[in-house]
């Protein structure tokens, strides 16, 4: 198939504006899937987890053959994208494989946060954007109003916007015509040395790591020797294929095409997303331009409940990372919990999903701990110490100053929400730098904030206070001195290091009090009283206590009671499995999470 008959496009939209339904309709209309084959409501969502939450996590590429009214046959590659804000990185990768995008906007909702965010991303990638006003069948639809909004806010010409109802099938032929005539065809060099962009990967038990690629120049086929341009490593291609939407083997992938290749790649790290694949024997000189790496917004510690499961956790993280390049992790230790990992996520939802996948797909019981940053401690003898774990802080007398990392944060927000955002930043010990009006309604705020204040829920707070409209970008700037102290939590007189945190002096008392109260309600009663204390150094600043059992007995156990009472004990035992023995106290997972809730009521 010549490049001029190929179109690579994706669908971008806010959650629930109908992009998956639209994708389904396009699949049906092009005959890629018959109505009978559409067994699940939204065929491109692959995993159970996705089905449960009604969101797309993993993107999928689908090839369709379309015979246009003009009689010509075109090859269309549709790449589906996640709608949730945490996964803007995934959207960015799919955009890199396309020349155009269908911008789907709900006719009853208009432009929403994700719409804006993704349009800007698409514009950055120089994609041709085709506005599609969806759900025009609904009574409250206001297509003209939405068109006007798009033109004003984004500056995108909507005179040829397509009116559609994915649910009813209206506008589908027009959408496809627009794809054919308005989205440019790929313009790579079919005869040049191979250059293919890896935009995703998947691990297959039999074929090894599959690289999802967009071939820009040249071609790749079975038997070819390929080379990863970032590592220089070479592999032999054993299979090339496309998704229709299930995998189908093809002889080769030419310039302009989207598909996958398998090359007996055993190690995940050898098929790096963003990397360029070239010909092993006749390599290209320059790789394709890279694109924005995802910046983790949320960090936490992940520990296995059973210390023996460490290897299992490590392997699971490795496998997950293969399908989710935005997941970062590195080893970490805790005196109380043993060996674990410090992990970085795109957001709270991302963290939730990873945790659930680890527990469900890899059968792991996990403890999630408070996040931390790396502090720089200047000791009294002048020596600087990098401390990544509050436990490693030297004793108070030896500390001259503690410095913490600061970030330079760029926040884009509609002018209506400027006040809310400024309040949030002030709350997080931020320093206002500048404010600019990008348009009459869009403001760019520049703040400097301690990294520690934004690593857990700042992003989510930002989104919730701005109805999702704000976007955040940050980079680490420098280390600054702060009035910081180490807050320890003692359970039954022993410091539980996994609960220690470094806080700003102003917040220590309140934080300490909240923590001990919360922990008291989470730690189950034991056979002895359990004092829970918050301390700074040797000074106890808050105290609660879990009362001991005074009489905890099964009074009656006769013939008819035995089965039942035994089952009760078995159930209690199950409950204990989710607890971690810390010293002589059994602590449930939730207790560790308690440290993470910052300003709860």
């Amino acid at each position: 198939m010549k490049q001029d008959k190929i179109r690579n496009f994706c669908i971008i939209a806010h959650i629930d504006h109908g992009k998956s339904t639209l994708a389904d309709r396009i699949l049906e209309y092009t005959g890629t899937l018959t109505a009978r084959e559409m067994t699940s409501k939204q065929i491109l969502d692959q995993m159970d987890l996705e089905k449960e939450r009604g969101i797309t996590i993993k993107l999928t590429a689908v090839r369709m053959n379309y015979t246009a009214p003009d009689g010509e046959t075109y090859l269309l590659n549709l790449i589906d994208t996640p709608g949730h804000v945490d996964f803007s990185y995934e959207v960015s990768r799919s955009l890199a494989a396309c020349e155009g995008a269908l911008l789907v906007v709900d006719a009853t909702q208009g432009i929403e946060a994700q719409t804006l965010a993704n349009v800007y991303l698409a514009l950055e990638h120089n994609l041709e954007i085709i506005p599609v006003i969806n759900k025009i069948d609904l009574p409250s639809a206001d297509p003209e109003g939405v068109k006007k909004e798009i033109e004003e806010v984004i500056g995108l010409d909507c005179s040829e916007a397509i009116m559609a109802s994915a649910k009813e099938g209206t506008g589908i032929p027009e959408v496809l015509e627009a794809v054919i005539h308005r989205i440019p065809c790929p313009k790579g060099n079919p005869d040049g040395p191979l250059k293919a962009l890896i935009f995703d990967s998947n691990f297959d038990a039999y074929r090894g790591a599959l690289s999802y690629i967009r071939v820009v120049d040249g071609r790749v086929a079975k038997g070819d020797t390929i080379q990863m341009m970032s590592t220089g490593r070479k592999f032999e291609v054993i299979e090339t294929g496309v998704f229709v939407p299930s995998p189908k083997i093809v002889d080769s992938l030419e310039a302009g095409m989207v598909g996958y290749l398998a090359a007996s790649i055993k190690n995940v790290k050898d098929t790096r997303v963003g990397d360029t694949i070239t010909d092993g024997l006749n390599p290209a000189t320059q790789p394709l331009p890279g694109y924005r790496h995802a910046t983790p917004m949320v960090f936490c510690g992940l520990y296995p409940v059973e210390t023996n499961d460490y290897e299992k956790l490590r392997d699971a993280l490795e496998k997950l990372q293969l399908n989710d390049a935005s997941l970062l992790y590195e080893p970490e230790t805790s005196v109380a919990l043993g060996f674990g990992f410090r992990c970085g996520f795109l957001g709270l939802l991302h963290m939730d999903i990873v945790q659930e996948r680890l527990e469900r797909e890899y059968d792991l019981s996990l403890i999630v701990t408070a996040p931390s940053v790396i502090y720089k401690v200047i000791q009294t003898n002048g020596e600087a110490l990098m401390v990544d774990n509050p436990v490693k802080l030297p004793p108070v007398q030896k500390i001259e100053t503690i410095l913490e990392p600061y970030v330079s944060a760029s926040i884009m927000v509609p002018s209506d929400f400027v006040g809310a955002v400024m309040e949030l930043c002030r709350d997080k010990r931020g320093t206002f730098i500048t404010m600019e009006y990008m348009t009459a309604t869009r403001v760019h705020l520049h703040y400097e904030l301690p990294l520690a204040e934004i690593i857990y829920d700042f992003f989510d707070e930002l989104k919730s206070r701005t109805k999702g409209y704000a976007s955040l970008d940050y980079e680490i700037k420098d280390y600054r001195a702060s009035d910081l102290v180490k807050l320890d939590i003692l359970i039954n007189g022993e410091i539980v290091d996994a609960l220690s945190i470094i806080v700003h002096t102003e917040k220590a008392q309140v934080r300490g009090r909240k923590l001990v109260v919360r922990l008291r309600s989470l730690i189950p009663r034991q056979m002895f009283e359990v004092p829970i204390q918050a301390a700074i150094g040797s000074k106890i600043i808050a105290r609660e206590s879990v009362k001991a059992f005074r009489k905890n007995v099964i009074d009656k156990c006769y013939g008819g009671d035995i089965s039942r009472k035994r089952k009760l004990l078995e159930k209690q035992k199950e409950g204990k499995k989710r607890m971690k023995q810390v010293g002589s106290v059994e602590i449930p997972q939730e207790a560790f999470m308690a440290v993470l809730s910052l300003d709860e009521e």
Partner: protein
Amino acid sequence: MKERAMGVYVHIPFCTTRCNYCDFYSNANVGAPQQGQYITSLLHEWECYSACGVRHDWNIETLYIGGGTPTVLVDQHLERLLEGLMERLKPRNLQEFTVEANPGTLTEEKLKILRDHGCDRLSLGVQSFDPFYLRWLGRSHDVRAVYESWEMARRLGWENLSLDLMYGLQDQTLDHWRQTLDQAIALEPEHLSLYQLNLEPGTPLAEQAARGEVHTVDEETARQQYLLARERLLAAGYVHYEISNFAKPGRESRHNTLYWKNKEYAGMGAGASGYINHVRYTNHKDLLLYTRMIKRNLVPRAFEETIDREMQKKEMLFLGLRMTEGVHQRDYRECFGRTLEEDFGAVIQKHVATGMMEMDAKSLRLTLEGLLQSNEILVDFF
């Protein structure tokens, strides 16, 4: 073939009224005809056993008729029940035959019937000597009935009497409980069972408690009451032989000991449970269903579970540790060919270290504090 010793439990699910705290399966105000029907079915149940391999030549050493209130049975049906049981069970070496009784349902005639058919032990549901609490608990008798029944039983020759008491009642002070204990001791029972009032879901008291109309004592008071009872009874010459049970030396409940020593017993009647050939079972509670299945010569089991070896070990422990003498090393070894140390060493060590358990060459036992914390400790053995 070595004959197997076992016990038999018979359930009579009838009562005059329902007590406010009881979640037992029972039916109130059952008339004589229905009682008669039930007895017929129950006796026939023994025939149904042959269908599932329970041998009729087993050596039945203990017999226990419980309920409900077995003594609400009218004399005629009570007699038929006892005769029928003896015919079928053919106990050659019956060591203990207990019948649960309620003060107020006992008449001389009834007691004579029981005695004449070999019943040598009565367990009386007294609960309290305070009329206020008797009413509060919804008991169908008064204090006088207690004394009358007791006197009658002694007069007619019973030398093995047990009574039940409840503590932890609303606003019950330690003094009040002490008085109750003294009154009980004055009757010189051979055996006592003491239970803390527990609000079982679905009972009238539990519902009242949910509405805030009623409350029980706090845990600290319950503990004090437990310890007080132990102190008084020990001083009066009783042996504290199980978490909730006290007896004069040699007068422990042999039947109940079968449960705690994990021995075999058959359960007859609606809702009764048994443990035979390592299978635990429970009969249907519903009278109609029970009767129907018996009519079809089917063993009326609602529930069955096979206890595998590993679970047998755990059961031996969770049941055996209820007795203050604990689990004997020799018994465990004979049963499983392994030692307690081998199978539960780590758990035992943990609890010995905190003073909750003791172990020596003879047995593994809970200490007094261990008994009070037993629920938490026993979990670890699973």
